[in-house]
């Protein structure tokens, strides 16, 4: 029998100018009616050659560039860059800098997660979640402004410490924002997690097993929602995370809903971390150093370090050749790997599920394409 063209299936190109793709990328899906039977992500629209650009710049000039890797997690990226150079220089950070970095990182994590939750709201068709989340995010951006003078591209960490100490009354503002946020987050939970329509959209979609997740290299909350109990902050501590007591939420269901719940709990834990770090910062005298002087040139060698980005594992691999410019700087972006797993994530889902499933990856194309 002759087999004609598969007319019952069609390819749909979603992106790069599609409302669900938060950024410039394309997801080509093949659908049979409303069921997805094949998918293929395409990226590269934003490829700037970031790693190559860095080979042309002296070390301090790369910090503002690292901010631009991801618009909402700029703090962790510049922190990661500073960390890898510090490991290359073999310097030890002063206590004050370590705790300040923890505070800055967690503020960044909360606002990045809020940006994610806002995007989930729009992907599922509820604009109220979007605006409420952005309203809460504004308080953390205000903290960013107070701390480092800019809302998104913070340029705060420096090689050997941080740019400046806390401004006056920062502890007070920070505590107020955190306390206010914890109350407001329950309100947001009331219209997301307590709404059965919202939960039904996420439950049972995008299911992956623990083995699949480990093999595909998915990291971050998407991994912890699938039962892998791994958080670099706890298991490979950096900055001052080793001295802070916090929980790593892990759920075993492996669907979008558990990823959602993991991220919500992570926001509460970040509040707790900020609280503890602030309490600790009060015990360190204000005159103590927050930034130490480092040499301009980095000794020869290769260095690798990683950090827990809001989206997963961020890793930088630095090859230095003894000059004041890096020989090679490799960025391992969590979203780059997570989006490569788009096919197993959306297979078998409906077209309406694609935004809900891919929203849990929390796309950020700046760091994906680099």
């Amino acid at each position, binding site marked *: 029998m002759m087999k004609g063209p598969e007319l019952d299936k069609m390819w749909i190109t979603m992106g790069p100018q599609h*409302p669900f793709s938060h950024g410039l990328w394309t997801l080509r899906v093949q659908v049979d009616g409303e069921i997805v039977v094949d998918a293929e992500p395409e990226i590269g629209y934003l490829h700037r050659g970031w790693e190559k650009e860095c080979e042309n710049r002296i070390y301090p000039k790369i910090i503002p560039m690292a901010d631009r890797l991801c618009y909402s997690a700029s703090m962790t990226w510049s922190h990661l860059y500073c960390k890898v150079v510090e490991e290359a220089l073999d310097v030890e950070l002063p206590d004050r800098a370590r705790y300040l970095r923890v505070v800055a990182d967690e503020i960044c994590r909360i606002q990045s997660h809020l940006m994610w939750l806002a995007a989930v709201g729009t992907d599922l068709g509820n604009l109220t979640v979007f605006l409420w989340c952005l309203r809460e995010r504004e308080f953390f951006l205000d903290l960013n402004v107070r701390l480092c003078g800019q809302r998104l591209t913070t340029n705060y960490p420096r090689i050997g410490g941080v740019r400046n100490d806390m401004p006056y009354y920062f502890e007070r503002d920070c505590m107020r924002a955190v306390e206010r946020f914890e109350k407001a987050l329950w309100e947001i939970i009331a219209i997301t997690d307590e709404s059965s329509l919202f939960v039904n*959209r996420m439950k049972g979609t995008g299911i992956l097993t623990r083995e699949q997740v480990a093999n595909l290299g998915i990291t971050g909350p998407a991994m912890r929602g699938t039962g892998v109990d791994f958080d670099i902050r706890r298991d490979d501590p950096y900055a001052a995370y080793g001295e802070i007591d916090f929980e790593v939420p892990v759920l075993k269901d492996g669907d979008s809903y558990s990823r959602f719940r993991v991220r919500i709990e992570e926001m509460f834990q970040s509040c707790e971390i900020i609280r503890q770090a602030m309490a600790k910062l009060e015990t360190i005298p204000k005159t103590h150093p927050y930034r130490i002087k480092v040499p301009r040139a980095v000794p020869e060698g290769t260095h690798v370090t990683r950090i827990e980005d809001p989206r997963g594992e961020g890793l930088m691999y630095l090859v230095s050749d003894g000059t004041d410019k890096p020989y090679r700087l490799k960025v391992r972006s969590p979203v780059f790997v997570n989006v490569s797993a788009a096919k197993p994530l959306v297979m078998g889902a409906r077209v309406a599920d694609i935004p809900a499933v891919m929203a849990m990856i929390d796309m950020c194309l700046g760091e994906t394409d680099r």
Partner: protein
Amino acid sequence: MGYSGLLEWVKFNNPMDNAYYPYDVYNLPYDAGAKLWELLGGLLGWLINLLVPGNRLSTWLISDAVVNAFAIIFLAVILFAVGFVVNLTMIWEERKVLGRMMDRRGTKIGPLGYFQCLGDGLKTFMKENVAPADKDKKIYWWALSLVIGSSVLIACMVPLSHRWFVVDYSTGLLLIFGIFALAPFFILCAGWAQNNKYSLLGGIRAATLMISYEIPMLILLASVVLMAGSFNINDIVNAQFDTMWYIVPQFIGFIVFVVCAIAESERVPFDLAEAEAELVEGWQTEYAGMKWGLIMLGDYFRGYTACALIVILYLGGWMLPGIGATAVPELVFLLKIFAVFFIFIWARASLPRVRIDQILNIGWKRLMPLSVVNLCIVLLLKMGGVF
């Protein structure tokens, strides 16, 4: 009729003396329409009569039937205009209330931001008329016109009070429902004609949505009609005034009807046909510029009709309990429509979009049994002699 003065042709008769006068009471817009035709038609008849004296056309032009027909059409245009203004107000209300619910301010142009919709309408007018090259041309344009046209038509059918209405057939309600249910078919056609996968999916979704929501809606309509004992809108409203608002005995029916009405007018929790997160703009994707503006307007017309139906069926229409028809029953009716529309906005602000299989589940497994339960309650009440 011989050659005579103009005043013999333009008589300005009392409209109530018209043999076809459809109303029981004096109707101002009808009167205005009738007088306008007497002026225009009388002038025309006089002129024709000057040229060709004694022709039958001139006499027909000022006959009762023509005057009545013109007055009814005039009334329909007036009702459309009212519906148009109500639509603008509803858009404004939606923006403002949605703004407050989302902690925003809503529109700010003009007094309380009312002129924003006018500005938006002007903007869509200015836009370039873009249409895909590979479209199915006839269906593309006809489906668009019919979607908008049917929406406008039902909006004109909605009576504003016992004295401001166009149709008074005993099956007026059925007519509205019938045209209401036509639109998804045109949407399916429009989705096909655009030669776009998103709009095709959107069109199919609209059709799917229709079959799962029409049936509970019609069962609910049947229970209301059963309770009132008539398909006539006026009778239903009067029956509610005589006993009580039907929201009280048929509370389940009210809730189910609101859900169905939201789905029927394709508003947010059930706007699958134009789910912007996955289908860009669904079946409206390739309708750009003013076409989209008109579709939007048609959507709001459908929302307006859905609200009006809820008000008529469950909230006592233009009557107030204990008072009856006030001096301006139209205003009472419109205020009730705005109140019902508030529920629509509220649902939009707090609920996410439902998936297509879930919507079928809700439609067939929840709303359908609930509407049957509602019907049973009505039957019990009716048999028990309460109504």
